[in-house]
């Protein structure tokens, strides 16, 4: 039996339609999975942040901000102060290294030297945080005899902050248009004037973004500090030979204590830390947008 032209047309149309339906269906499947994964991630973020917020708010009190504590009793004032002291010390070390090192990479280095130096920045980012802590302990605490201290902990954090600042600064410098450099040279600027009046000025939002990012990440670190800053039941006023308290230690250590108050301390510390970090990250987004 031979098929008429009309019948063949109808059949191929049916085939096309079923193929079309299959294509639309697979698109729908991917779309649904995509949305489901998205909803899952948002749900997870809300679950984690919500848990910290609810339990943190339930236990937190004003007294915690003004009294010192020892992870099982007292408050968090020493840990809050110590966290920012450590991050600040790290920044004092990492900021000039990052900002001026990036200036070399972007302005002076040749292809090869730049490539080699950048490789070491990449290697630096690849070192696990606990190994940086081990390094801080062996070199700073023991070899350079700083003891468990603000300087040892801060420098270890600084080592971790360098790559963030250096990489984003370098991108900011190289985004300065060639014409602006030429204009600066045409006005008789020397290389230093070019660097300070043009490049650093043009890159300042980029550097701000980098600093906020580096600070927000350093504030949440624990492993580098456990064996370089240790912990202190009081405020820290000396650069060396005096341990420092910090929030992440309280979260980790208080959780192992058997009392309800210690758990409240852990959650309050987590709440303060996460709120500060989110604030810094959103601020860095805001600064970046102003560019």
């Amino acid at each position, binding site marked *: 039996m031979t098929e008429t032209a009309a019948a063949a047309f109808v059949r191929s149309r049916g085939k096309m339609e079923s193929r079309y339906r299959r294509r639309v269906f697979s698109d729908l499947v991917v*779309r649904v999975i995509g949305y489901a994964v998205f909803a899952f991630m948002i749900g997870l973020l809300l*679950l984690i942040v919500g848990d910290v917020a609810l339990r943190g708010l339930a236990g937190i009190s004003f007294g915690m901000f003004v009294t010192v504590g020892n992870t099982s009793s007292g408050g968090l004032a020493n840990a809050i102060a110590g966290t920012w002291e450590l991050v600040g010390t790290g920044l004092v070390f990492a900021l000039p290294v990052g900002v001026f090192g990036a200036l070399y990479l972007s302005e002076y280095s040749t292809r090869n030297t730049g490539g080699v130096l950048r490789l070491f920045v990449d290697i630096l980012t690849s070192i696990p945080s606990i190994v940086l802590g081990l390094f801080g302990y062996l070199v700073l605490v023991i070899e350079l005899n700083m003891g468990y201290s603000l300087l040892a902990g801060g420098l270890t954090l600084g080592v971790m902050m360098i790559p963030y600042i250096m990489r984003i600064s370098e991108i900011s410098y190289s985004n300065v248009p060639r014409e602006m450099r030429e204009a600066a040279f045409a006005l008789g600027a020397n290389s230093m004037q070019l660097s300070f009046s043009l490049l650093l000025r043009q890159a300042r939002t980029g550097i701000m973004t980098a600093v906020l990012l580096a600070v927000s990440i350093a504030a949440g670190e624990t492993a580098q500090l456990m064996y370089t800053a240790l912990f202190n039941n009081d405020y820290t006023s000396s650069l060396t030979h005096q341990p420092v308290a910090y929030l992440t230690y309280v979260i980790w250590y208080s959780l192992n204590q058997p009392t309800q108050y210690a758990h409240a301390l852990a959650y309050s510390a987590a709440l303060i830390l996460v709120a500060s970090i989110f604030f810094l990250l959103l601020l860095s987004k805001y600064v970046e947008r102003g560019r």
Partner: protein
Amino acid sequence: MIDLAWNERKPLENLFFLFTLAMALVPFAIMVILFSFLIYNAIPSMRYSGFGFFTSYIWNPGMLYENPVLVHGVLAPYRSSFGMLGFFLGTMITTALALVIAFPVSIFLSLSLNLYTPQKLRKPFSVLVELFAGIPSVVYGLWGIIVLEPVLLHSIEPWMKANLSFLPGFSGEIFSGAGIIAAGLILGIMIIPIVTAVISESMASQPRELKEGVYALGGTRWEVGKSVLLRNTKRQIVGGTLLGTGRALGETMAVLMVSGAVVNVLPSGIFSLTNTMSAQIAAALDSAFIDATGMNISALVELGVILVIISLIANLAGRAIVGRAALRGYEHD
């Protein structure tokens, strides 16, 4: 791009040039110091344990109140023994589990960000992913202990044991909710932001014309995703996954808190308690300080050296594939 020769610059300019050079050399100097100190401090352990460090899973600090013994020319505590096998397997298994979780999630997250999410919502959603990356490791650990572990212990793991026991490794005793599953899950959640960031950014940078071409031929969004986004970003997908692997390998605190941090145990199934190389360093270092021979510290340093080598391979390979441009601050653990 400042290409004046040395003698064409004023002395002050040359001084400034040397200053920037010195600053650019700091990461190099830190790396030289770090590696030389780590390797120097690992030598006693290498001599004491030899190849057994890789094949044994017994980690015994020794009897610290006995007289130390002299082995292969180095002093070590009596009956001490150091083997990394348990921690190495723990690291590898939890990282693998993290990848199994993070890889599909990141792919679908990137696809839906680039194909289905309205333009207006893309920026807020990517900020959300970045906030995820900002949550500190200890907070993940805290959530893991307080929220995740009870759920795993009372609901998920018993269900898995009852219904999935035909799969290899899904048998054995359920302990406390801590262990391989908890550590793998937490690690997976932690590396999703970096893997997603790399994949999503490379998808977003695909040329408009390619996508429009597929649409013009009547392609659906998924066909654009399949034939343009996925096909052209294979390299970045591999690279992003490697960077995620690097982060998972070195992650310390969250794993220390939810893995069970056991020693002298090899994983016998997916419900086993476990431990990783990084978590072991963090957990054992303070008791290692009381060892007067220093062998305990040396053994932990050797563990650190091996961890660094493994994580360097993953990170540098990932970075070489992805290129530097796609990275902006997600990569550190």
